[in-house]
């Protein structure tokens, strides 16, 4: 597959309030093909949020480069939709206006075509009966569905999802996973899905990136060769548990050869 998103030797430092540089990412390189579904798993502190901010163009890496379509990412772009950990809807707007928010916020007014687009997205996430409800009247899962519809509004090529289902209960979470696969099938996108859940990663992704913490590094890349469409039956397959075991093994007992020891700690000074 032709690479669509590439990260080349990306390292990133940020300053603490005391003015000390902390390394969030160290020499991270990977690529994502067009319409590929990539999941990133790893414990807290492995730089997942930094990765999100770099890819969305909200930050520039200290070293290395982030490229989309071969062009370095220097500022936020319309081609990226973000779904956050919390739905973070605007409580004073109803579902439809929340979905339309990116367009209204950017340009002030939505065209009829865009309004129709919003309605079909609301239908796609299964909320057509709730289009004029306020966020406060919706359950957590429903709110996150609105968040997904909002991220898809500008028809992004890349969808970044930052632990989108972690605030949901286990049952809703499973249901949302399958719904996401259906939506991805209906309108294919390049997806970077950040999660804490190993089984969720294996169930959804074409490829799982395993990160290790402090500083955040890529410790292994595992292609998931399970047939699609995936369903509840996929979870019961032997290959599925082999994948989850392998990932769990890598997270808790990493093979050290992948971790490069010598680094450019001294470059930190010119921050």
């Amino acid at each position, binding site marked *: 597959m032709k690479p669509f998103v590439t990260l080349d030797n990306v390292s990133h430092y940020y300053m603490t309030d005391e003015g000390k540089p902390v390394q969030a990412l160290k020499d991270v390189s990977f690529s994502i093909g067009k319409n590929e579904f990539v999941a990133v798993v790893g414990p807290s502190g492995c730089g997942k949020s930094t990765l999100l901010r770099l890819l969305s163009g909200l930050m520039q890496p200290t070293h290395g480069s982030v490229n989309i379509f071969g062009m370095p990412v220097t500022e936020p772009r319309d081609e990226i939709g*973000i779904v956050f*950990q919390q739905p973070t809807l605007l409580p004073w707007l109803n579902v439809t206006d929340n979905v339309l928010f990116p367009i209204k916020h950017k340009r002030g007014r939505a065209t009829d075509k865009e309004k129709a687009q919003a309605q079909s997205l609301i239908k796609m996430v299964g909320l057509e009966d709730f289009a004029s409800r306020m*966020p406060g009247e919706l359950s957590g899962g429903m709110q996150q569905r609105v968040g997904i519809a909002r991220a898809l509004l500008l028809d992004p090529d890349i969808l970044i999802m930052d632990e989108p289902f972690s605030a949901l209960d286990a049952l809703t979470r499973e249901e949302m996973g399958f719904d996401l696969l259906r939506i991805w099938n209906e309108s294919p996108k390049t997806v970077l899905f950040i999660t804490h859940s190993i089984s969720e990663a294996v169930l959804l992704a074409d490829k799982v990136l395993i990160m290790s913490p402090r500083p955040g590094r890529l410790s292994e890349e595992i292609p998931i060769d399970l047939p699609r469409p995936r369903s509840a039956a996929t979870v019961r397959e032997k290959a599925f548990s082999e994948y989850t075991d392998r990932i769990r093994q890598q997270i808790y007992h990493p093979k050290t050869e992948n971790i490069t020891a010598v680094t450019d700690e001294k470059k930190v000074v010119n921050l």
Partner: protein
Amino acid sequence: MSELTISKFQTFKRYLPALTLALILPAWELICRLFEVPSYILPTPSDIYQAFIAVDLDRWGLHLWATLKVALVGFALSMLISIPLAMLMVNSKYLSKTLYPILVVVQSTPVVAIAPLLITMFGSGEAPRLAITCLITFFPLVVSATTGMMATPNELIDLSRSLRAPRYKEIFAIRLPYALPHIFSGMKVAVTLAIIGAVVAEFVAAEQGLGYFIQFSTSFFKVPQAFAALIFLSIVSLGLFKLVHWVQAYFFGWTMTKEKA
């Protein structure tokens, strides 16, 4: 408990405050009469009522209007200053670090003590009274607006920036509405403080207003009349509080229900 008794109990609970008042008033009356408390120390409710109807409604209206005008105009001015100031402070770390200490100093200075100084500075017109009301209502408004705007989730700010929306939109379309629940809490505090501000100003220099009327009445030992004015003031204050609550519920209903997520 059956549903019927629950609903009866609910009705009972609803009228409980009125019931309490209905018990306190006769008790007050009885104690004052029984122990022959002189009316200049504690007038009975019936004395207060008599004093209230002894004064022309026109005269009440004149005093009420004088106080209300100062309180409302002062409150409005305070809103006009404090909300933009809060926006500036949220927008710039430098400004907030410079202004916040000054605000705290102003807030810790007792306004009642500044009142005579303001009168000498601004003369005896409306200006010093408005200034006093502004000073007393200003702080809760700035603090609530700033807190509310700072409480906006970072993700929404990230979303706004990822859309490359202009910065003023980040403030007006996201932070300001997000702060509304906080701002309304601040307004409820500030609007009752506005009455206090107006009354303090009238104590220092005024020819009319309910605060002036209380001072005038007590200086002639017309204590029941002063009590009548005092009760009038509390009712006005309560009314303003309710008015803010009503505006919030009617126009900004969403601020009343807490977001689940």
